């Protein structure tokens, strides 16, 4: 926005081109109407494509409807919900998702912040470094998933090849219960560490210099300065990034679909992946809708947290 047009407010161009209208017309199209006219189309699209489908899913979640078997939907009220909440299968997926979300978010936060911290201490080449680090984040999950699947292949994958030449054994990255979930976390971390880094960097570069200078006069230790100056200032922003990532990680589907297809067994099936199976393998639309609504509730709670912090950050 550097090329701001110098506005000479009292000279809005030749009269011929603009034909300044009478003031009456502006009253006709009052601000209120204008606001409605400008906002309504966008809101209508959201109502039609987001709110309405969700309400429909809510209705279906109380029925035994199936998208392929057809027939009228019978109300089963809360039976879908109680079945889901008491299902051991669902608990298993919830646990997997929890491990995945916590593991991935913690790892990428630590790593992302470290990189941001190191970059912020550099004098030269910051722009270049930042740009290079951002590459993974811009790739499609499909590309990321496929390519890591190739690299993690136990037989001819480059990761095992490197481990081999370092004299370490081969690892079955995608076919062992533990390593498969770890692989998923690693790949997600690889893709999204730049996200945390980017936001942390925004916070770090904004820490006022004089605060450090004051601290250095006091001969405060490096760690002390980091803990008392840097972290508290960056923390609010970092929290937003973490919450944002948590929501995204909670919704994860595509990476699982491509990298492990939920395997081995069902050990990397996340909640999203399970919803997909219920919805499109058995076409148990009613159950899947209830399952989805429960997921949406979790997302709403997380989003509320996110928005609250965002709000706080804005108002502080």
């Amino acid at each position, binding site marked *: 926005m550097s090329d701001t047009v110098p*506005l000479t*407010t*009292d000279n*809005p161009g030749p009269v011929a081109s*603009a034909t300044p*209208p009478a*003031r009456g017309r*502006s009253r006709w199209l009052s*601000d*209120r109407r*204008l*606001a409605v006219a*400008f*906002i309504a189309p*966008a809101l209508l*699209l*959201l109502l039609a494509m*987001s709110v*309405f*489908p*969700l309400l429909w*899913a809510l209705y279906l979640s109380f029925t035994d409807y199936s998208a392929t078997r057809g027939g009228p939907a019978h109300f089963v009220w809360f039976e879908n919900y109680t079945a889901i909440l008491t299902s051991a299968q669902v608990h298993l997926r919830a646990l997997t998702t929890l491990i995945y979300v916590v593991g991935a978010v913690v790892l990428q936060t630590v790593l992302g912040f470290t990189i941001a911290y*190191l970059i912020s*201490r*550099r004098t030269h080449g910051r722009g270049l470094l930042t740009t290079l680090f*951002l590459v*993974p984040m*811009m790739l*499609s*999950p499909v590309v990321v998933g*496929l*390519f*890591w*699947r*190739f*690299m993690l292949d136990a037989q001819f994958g*480059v990761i095992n090849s490197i481990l081999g030449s370092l004299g370490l054994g081969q690892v079955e990255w995608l076919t062992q219960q533990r390593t498969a979930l770890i692989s998923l976390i690693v790949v997600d971390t690889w893709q999204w560490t*730049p*996200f945390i880094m*980017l*936001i942390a960097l*925004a*916070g770090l*570069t*904004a820490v006022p210099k004089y605060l450090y200078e004051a601290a*250095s006069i006091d001969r405060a230790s490096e760690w002390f300065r980091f803990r008392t100056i840097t972290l508290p*200032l960056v923390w*609010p922003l970092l929290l937003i*990034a973490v919450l*944002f990532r948590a929501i995204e990680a*909670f919704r994860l589907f595509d990476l699982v679909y491509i990298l492990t297809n939920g395997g081995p067994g069902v050990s990397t099936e996340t909640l*999203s*992946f399970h*919803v997909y199976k219920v919805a*499109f393998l058995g076409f148990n639309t009613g159950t899947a809708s209830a399952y*989805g609504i429960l997921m*949406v509730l979790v997302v709403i709670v997380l*989003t509320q947290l996110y928005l609250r912090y965002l709000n706080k*950050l804005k108002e*502080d």
Partner: protein
Amino acid sequence: MAVSVDEAVSPGPVRDHPAPTRRRSGRGRSVLELALLVVLAAVMLFPALWMLETSIKENRDVYAIPAKFFDFTVTLDHFRDVFVAPDGGRSALSVSFLNSVVVAGVSTLLATVLGVPAAWAYSRFSVKAKKDQLFFILSTRFMPPVVVVIPIFLMYRQVGLIDSKLGLILIYAAFNVPFTIWMMKGFVDEVPAEYEDAAMLDGYTRLQAFRKFTLPLLVPGIAATAVFALIFSWNEFVFAIFLTSSDEVRTAPPAIAGLIGGTTVDWGLVAAASVVFALPVLVFAYLVRKHLVAGVTLGAVRR
């Protein structure tokens, strides 16, 4: 939390110089930090470089054990295969790239046309429960796609939008409108409302004032916002795989995913297709690098 967000995230005074106290162990530490940074950068970039390398290797080198890092024959065959079918015609993959261009382009246009005026209105007027409306708008963007796709699927089959580009365009636009509004509201906020007030004193209507004075100033912001919307639509996979099936409609992500799972896997082709697919995104991302923080947080955090 003594610092306001404007200070905390604005490109304020940047601490360019290392603190003066670092004298004694300063140099050694700096080298160590640089080394660490280089190692981390290498790790982060390696997969992308490996992808690039695989895309120009012959297939027998692709599967070589141990992996070949330098001594391999360079070939551009895989890139040819991305665009040209074995019989010389246009490959299915290249058709899907074209579909992606159409779907991502039109949905971005739609989101921009709907989102920019709304953002302006939210910025300029006192709308009832404005904050609630804005938060509601943002929260629709967080819905899990796998969940949304179920009712969308039912809805689309009623109106015949299954397996159509229009269907994908509409859902992508719906996901991009919240983003566009939040992102653009920030840009509109930066343009002083006084410009419009002054113009209105000169006899322009509010609408004319918006079109003639504010809109031109918003163009860079609109461009940045549109690029992020474009990247989202371009990369999207979940809706694409569940709502489309035919070659004529399928976008690139499901088409690339379809390269594995046949009777043979051509990783060279997968790599080449991925490179071709990722390149425009990287170029676009570079163009909007100034707005990245706002872009990746859906406009919520502004730098």
